[in-house]
């Protein structure tokens, strides 16, 4: 959580300073607890984690190298996307990290397919696949089709719905008409849970339960966490449309601060240890950015400009 927060704060300041980051910056501030609780309990090499735009924390916890983030944001030729795609659109599909496309909802069926393939090959074992989504993303046809398909096939899929009350500027009441998103689980025939998405311990518990249910063959699990995005949709957005009453409500509390308070209260960490954690995260972020800065940018003259894997199949148009 801390590393993700520090990294994202740094990316935001680079964005504001201008120059080094091309394109937008989309942050997960306020959603780290929900994201990390999932990523932490999946294991790379076995499970699949399809994080979306607010899952920096979950991706780091799952095992995505921090360099993947810095290289993709800064456009290093050595990053997994090699300048071909940017910011949160990154991944290593062969390592259980599908690279999201922008179109919301469309990763759900891809994760389902990854699980289907493993099952067909007889090597699914007790792996699960998780697909993150926002409250707005649940309104897409792709989300519905994907979850329904996974439910029909009884696949070990975890759907993590981060309900941050808004989709860009659109509040929940313009997004869906059901009383609560978790009510939908029943309609899909999947098991559903609600959790306070700011409460790290509660999130850890609910995901632990959901993951174990999925591993045990009980089909897709839908976890809805309620929380608030503590910032704009992206760094270009001041979120002025979110009323102060909500920002200052219980919903608007910072999950990282809450987690730190909880750790102190329970004696799991001291103030000094928390400060040291922040400092070591800062160093890790600085190291990743320094290394990325020294790396080459993509070169249009060396770029293959070929979209097909079959190099012999070239359309001759000049």
């Amino acid at each position: 959580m801390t590393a993700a927060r520090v990294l994202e704060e740094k990316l935001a300041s680079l964005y504001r300073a201008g120059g080094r980051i091309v394109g937008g910056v989309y942050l997960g501030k306020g959603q780290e607890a929900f994201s990390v609780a999932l990523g932490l309990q999946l294991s790379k090499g076995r499970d699949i984690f399809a994080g979306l735009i607010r899952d920096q924390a979950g991706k780091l916890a799952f095992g995505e190298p921090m360099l993947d983030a810095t290289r993709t944001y800064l456009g290093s030729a050595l990053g997994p996307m090699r300048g071909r795609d940017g910011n949160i659109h990154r991944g290593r599909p062969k390592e259980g990290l599908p690279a999201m496309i922008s179109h919301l909802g469309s990763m759900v069926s891809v994760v389902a397919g990854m699980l289907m393939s493993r099952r067909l090959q007889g090597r699914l074992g007790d792996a699960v696949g998780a697909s993150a989504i926002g409250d707005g993303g649940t309104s897409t046809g792709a989300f519905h089709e994907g979850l329904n398909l996974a439910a029909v096939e009884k696949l070990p899929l975890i759907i993590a719905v981060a309900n941050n009350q808004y989709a860009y500027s659109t509040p929940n009441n313009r997004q869906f008409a059901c009383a609560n998103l978790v009510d939908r689980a029943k309609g899909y025939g999947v098991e559903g849970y609600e959790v306070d998405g700011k409460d790290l311990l509660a999130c850890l518990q609910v995901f632990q339960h959901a993951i174990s249910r999925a591993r045990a063959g009980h089909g897709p699990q839908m976890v809805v966490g309620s929380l608030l995005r503590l910032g704009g949709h992206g760094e270009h957005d001041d979120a002025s449309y979110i009323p102060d009453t909500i920002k200052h409500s219980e919903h608007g509390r910072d999950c990282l601060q809450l987690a730190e308070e909880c750790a102190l209260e329970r004696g799991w960490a001291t103030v000094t240890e928390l400060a040291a954690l922040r400092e070591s995260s800062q160093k890790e972020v600085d190291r990743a950015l320094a290394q990325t800065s020294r790396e080459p940018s993509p070169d249009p003259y060396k770029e293959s400009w070929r979209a097909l894997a079959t190099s012999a199949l070239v359309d001759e148009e000049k």
Partner: protein
Amino acid sequence: MSLTYLEAIREAQYEALRRDPRVFIYGQDIGEFGGAFKATKRLSAEFPGRVLDSPISEDAMVGMAIGAAVEGSRPIVEMQFADFSSVGFNQIVNQAATLYWRTNVPCPIVIRLPSGGTPGSGPFHSQSMESIYAHYPGLVILTPATVEDAYHLLLDAVELEDPVIFCEHKFLYYHLKADALPTSTLPIGKARIARPGRHATVVAYSAMVHESIRAAEELQQDGYQIEVVDMRSVKPIDTGTILASVARTGRLLCVGESFPWGGVTAEVISRVVADGFHLLDAPPQRLNSKDTPIPYHPNLWRAHRPTAASIVAELRKLLKF
């Protein structure tokens, strides 16, 4: 033994399943029922667990196939009709077509589109989608016109590392027969001279190859020898074979069944004009369907799409120029 175009597609899928344990087929009503056109007849019994009924979810069907390909499977997705692939459009053009380029992970999936018009099918069961998909980088678009190609191109498609849109023509399903399957054909990306000639070239694909051959037969009675080029693959386009034909004839008509705005025929003509302007003795022409949705009634339908008669009329103008 004689075999229809549809049976060839079934046989190719049988062979793909037999050869390669990574292959599975996914689509609506394709399991025990054998598919709306019976292209997967008995396959689910012959390959248990590998020919799977899907929900009516074209988006998720394609997304699922992409995920499966990432994990090492070789999925074939059957769309019940090409028209419904529009619901899976996003996954096809944004997810499948970009996967390799973005992540270096190939996306070997085949999406079968039962395409084109048959009488009485109307606006939503008759479409030809090849031009739309060909517009997007990262896809291979195949349009077999013969029983042999229906078989071999489909098998080749399954072996390819890239996403293939396989446009099989419903009008040819039952009409077209071959005595036996040859052991091999031209590779993907190569066009074929379906009929040699020297007075004009008709470039066509899929069902339009047969309309064009009928037109050529009719004009032969007037002493014209029309060369017909079967594109086989509309992406990539075998520009070389087309230009070589135009070099022999000096005249070009390009025929396609899809809508007239842009598309495959426009692309072929633009390439011939750019690279072979000096070879042309007359302005190159193209013939497509009319620019309306596809009508239901056979009287209207026959007038909507190019036919041997309209191709003959177009060729006569071209030959007189």
